[in-house]
């Protein structure tokens, strides 16, 4: 938006509209493409390497959509033990009962899976929809 700052020095109606305006189409807007629900979209930055095998590295920016219902296989930002953590979600039922169980699965062998009991003080904070990497 900074470009408008400079253009708007004076509020004066003047001049003819450019005839090219009639032929303008919208340029690709990544905000619109990557942010499906603006009211529910937040961003996070990856710290550490717990999802390295899924191609998610330290410094990557996560696009997090809180409006989405978490589903099996989603990559999600979860709140565990006082911090935000990035994991894959695995939904299942406990053997011999119909209690739902959720497992948080890292994409790095050096990190353990985390079993989550239903009703514990645990939170899927939001589902990750895009990972943005800086290449150069």
């Amino acid at each position, binding site marked *: *938006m900074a470009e*408008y*700052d400079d*253009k*708007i*020095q*004076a*509020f004066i*109606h003047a001049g003819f509209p450019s005839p090219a305006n009639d032929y303008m189409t*919208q340029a690709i*807007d990544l*905000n*619109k493409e990557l942010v499906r*629900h*603006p*009211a*529910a979209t*937040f*961003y*996070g*930055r*990856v*710290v*550490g390497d*717990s999802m390295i095998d899924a191609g998610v590295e330290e410094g990557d*920016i*996560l696009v997090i959509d*809180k*409006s989405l219902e978490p589903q099996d296989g989603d990559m999600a*930002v979860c*709140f565990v033990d*006082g*911090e*935000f*953590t*990035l994991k894959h979600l695995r939904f299942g039922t406990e053997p011999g009962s119909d209690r739902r169980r959720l497992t948080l699965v890292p994409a790095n062998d050096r990190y353990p899976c985390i079993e989550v009991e239903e009703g514990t003080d645990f*939170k899927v*904070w939001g589902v990750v929809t895009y990972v943005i990497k800086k290449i150069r």
Partner: protein
Amino acid sequence: MYALVDCNNFFVSCERVFRPDLEGKPVVVLSNNDGCVVSRSNESKAMGIKMCTPFYQVKHFVDGGRLTAFSSNYALYGDLSGRVMSILAEAVPEIEIYSIDEAFLHLEGMDPSGIPALCRKLVDKVRTWVGVPVSIGVAPTKTLAKIASHFAKTYKGYKGVCIMDTPEKRCKALSLTPIDEVWGIGRRLAPKLMDRGIRTASDFAQRPREWVAANMNVNVLRTWEELNGVRCVEEEMLERRQSICTSRSFADMIEDPHELQLRISDFAAMCASKLREEGSAASQVTTFMYTNRFREDLDQYYPSATVCLEVAANNTQEIVSAALKGFRTIFREGYKYKKAGVIVSEITSADAIQTSMFDFEEEKRRKHDRISKVMDSFNSSGSLLRLGTQRPGHYADGIRSDFRSPLYTTDLDDIIEVR
């Protein structure tokens, strides 16, 4: 019917979105300069901490680890407020943003049987999408909707939605509402009414109209009517406003940002002029825009943004700058806007403006005030004078905020860290 949507303990709830560990724990948010408590979680209310308690009186709780305190993070609250309002605006034909954390929904023409489900859906949606809890009160008048929302918030059984749709429910609620909690009565008038034996909203509503008309001013009479289910408080009612709104629907839809900025700066200038007229000043400036909801073939977008001034102002320069700052955060290319407006709220008397201890901008402000006076005299001659350059000021410079949380949603360097 009106629905009042009220965000519960809004500033505290905003902080908790990014600090889920603070759910269920005592939390307060402090005013400008960390002066006093302006938002409390239910747990800190239960500790006996009152609104506007000076921070030094509760600091020992913080030092002892029993209370978490935050400096105001207006950028965060403004952003989350805009998200809440856009969700509400999408759900109903008309919404009136009343303050940073409250909005009236106009439910005219809706099937009454569908209203409870709609409200429940909105409570869940705002909680899931944005992360803040809201309460909704539905009633035939705004004053009653306010009371209903209070019930929705206070009593767990309502699960956040209280529909006051029958005379029986209304009577019950009014008899449980102390007179000083009624919207439009206020602290000054309440003792006078209590002296006359009026303790509850119900006592007041049951007085004969003639008695109220003879003994009270016209605003109080309006409140009496509203409590009895007669709609009196309309949009932009001037007498007891806590906010001033200037908005217009455009004859043609506008998508050019320059044109929109021009309109919005005019709206903001009008708000500033109205503030000066009545000798008041505002510390919140909300900019909103709506696309045309009746054009289903077009993309829809109903954004709003609230910018908080560190010190209440009524000069054109500051109000317009704040409105344009809000505009810049919400404007998106590719939408055709049908309506836009500016709301100034958190209004105080201009004489009673609390300047913060570190108001380095005071000299600049005096200059702005002088310019505004010149503009007023010029504009009253029938022409419209506009400011040439309008840039967002940095009002936060030099303000004490030792406990401010990161700018999670407005600064890419401050987004949450995920491990």
